[in-house]
């Protein structure tokens, strides 16, 4: 028998956050991530932590900003329209170099959209989290186990690089149950001498701030931040390669789309089609290098995503448009079926890259 337990993705994520040392959670109700808040509401009071239902998404992210300023691990979770409201706070967190973890359990959009799973916040997460030049580390779990593991990883990366980590999940990842085992060591401690914990009149005051009225000074901070981003691109990119050794067709998919694509790839392989997959685990930094490398052997890429084609642009950039990239997608809360992905693979195999 196993030591694993069945947990919903949202709950595994919440428990993993607590195990990572997060004792402060602020949120606002929105489907389909409510389980995270409900879990925190139950657990936090019992372990001396804070759960607070904020008056708005905006207040929640600013409470996160406050706790992060004090140097504690802190998180908030929401779903697409709520993340849009938080974008002001995301920009300020970046401008003040504060670590935080933000969860987006995506739903269909734009506008109020729907409540079914979606991946259409890809641009928002990887390119336009808010105003100004900044990045967030974007982690895309494809299982309940990864919902938990990437949460712990997200806190570590946030602390290490003093920035926001975002878990970009979707309704299926949040709602599904799978076996998980939550075994993490003691949370790693990071230097937080910058935090505003009170000077005790023994050191110069710390200031957490994103305002720099002198343009040369502001430019300098942007340069420094982007140097850090460069290190992250070099050191923290994560992806999974699946059956890529001899692949002539490369599927690129993340999250639930990657799970669906795996079924289709198994089916196509049984028919003798040489197809594999690169699954980005970090969407920013995007795994450009393995894709560029794959483009030497692969004749066509297929981007399987639950958006109108957002990640496909990053694939084209990564492979410098050397190969055609096809889009296989569903949107609005619809999930591509293995059959749809299989059909796209078969069609691509027939074309053989002749376009």
């Amino acid at each position, binding site marked *: *028998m*196993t030591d*694993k*337990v*069945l947990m919903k993705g949202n709950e595994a994520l919440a428990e993993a956050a607590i195990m990572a040392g997060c004792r402060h959670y602020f949120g606002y109700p929105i*489907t*389909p991530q409510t389980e995270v808040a409900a879990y925190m509401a139950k657990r936090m009071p019992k372990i001396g932590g804070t759960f607070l239902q904020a008056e708005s998404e905006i207040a929640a992210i600013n409470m996160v900003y406050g706790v992060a300023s004090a140097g504690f691990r802190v998180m908030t979770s929401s779903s697409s329209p709520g993340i849009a409201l938080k974008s002001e706070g995301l920009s300020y967190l970046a401008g003040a170099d504060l670590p935080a973890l933000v969860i987006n359990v995506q739903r269909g959009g734009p506008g109020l959209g729907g*409540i*079914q799973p979606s991946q259409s916040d890809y641009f928002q997460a990887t390119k336009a989290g808010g105003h100004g030049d900044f990045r967030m580390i974007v982690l895309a779990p494809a299982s309940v186990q990864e919902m938990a593991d990437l949460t712990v990883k997200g806190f570590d990366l946030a602390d290490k690089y003093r920035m926001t980590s975002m878990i970009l999940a979707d*309704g*299926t990842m949040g*709602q*599904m*149950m*799978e*076996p998980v085992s939550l075994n993490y060591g003691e949370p790693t401690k990071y230097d937080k001498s910058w935090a505003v914990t009170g000077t005790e009149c023994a050191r110069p005051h710390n200031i957490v701030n994103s305002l720099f009225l002198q343009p040369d000074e502001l430019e300098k901070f942007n340069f420094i931040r982007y140097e850090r981003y460069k290190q992250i691109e070099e050191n923290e990119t994560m992806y999974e390669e699946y059956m890529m050794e001899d692949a002539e067709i490369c599927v690129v998919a993340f999250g*639930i789309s990657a*799970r*669906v694509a*795996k*079924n289709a790839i*198994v089916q196509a392989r049984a028919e003798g089609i040489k197809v594999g997959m690169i699954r980005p685990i970090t969407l920013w930094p995007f795994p450009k290098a393995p894709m560029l490398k794959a483009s030497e052997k692969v004749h066509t890429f297929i981007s399987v995503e639950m958006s109108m084609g957002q990640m496909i642009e990053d694939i084209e950039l990564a492979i410098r448009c050397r190969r055609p990239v096809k889009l296989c997608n569903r949107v609005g809360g619809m*999930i591509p*079926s*293995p*059959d749809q992905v299989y059909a796209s693979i078969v069609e691509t195999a027939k074309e053989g890259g002749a376009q």
Partner: protein
Amino acid sequence: MSTRQILIAGFGGQGILFAGKFLAYKGLMEDKQVSWLPSYGPEMRGGTASCSVIISDEPVGSPIVSTPDLLVAMNLPSLDKYESSVVPGGTIIVDSTLIERKVARDDVNVVYIPATGLASENGMPTLANMIIVGKILKLYDEFNMEGVNAALGKVISARHQDMLQFNLKAMELGADA
């Protein structure tokens, strides 16, 4: 068995999700790979509810069951909606207390069981779901008590331990029906 794809569907409140959770946990206790995925949203509040359960020897790919090996239909809309999706040679279990019509397909195995009626007659009106679970275990010859007890221990919370016996009895009823 390599992979079993199960879709359980009915009204919210019939214990659809619970039945699925039990089956998934039983698979887990037997060292299988499992996934459980509910429909969510307004459907939770009295409309049609369904859940996908996959039990496999291999890592589970997509957790969404779109072509089930086994469909459990606990109301008519569910049978209407999913009948055609079952793989040829698959199985459909119909709660014949609530669904009057017969399954139209002839390329699938069909089991009619008056689960809701049986549940009321035996003083356990909320356990039609577990009567059907008993039937599933019987059909697939997977009624080993070790797995059943372990899974029940996981899905029934400590303060509802008194429900354990009722659940076991419901499963026995289903197995014999």
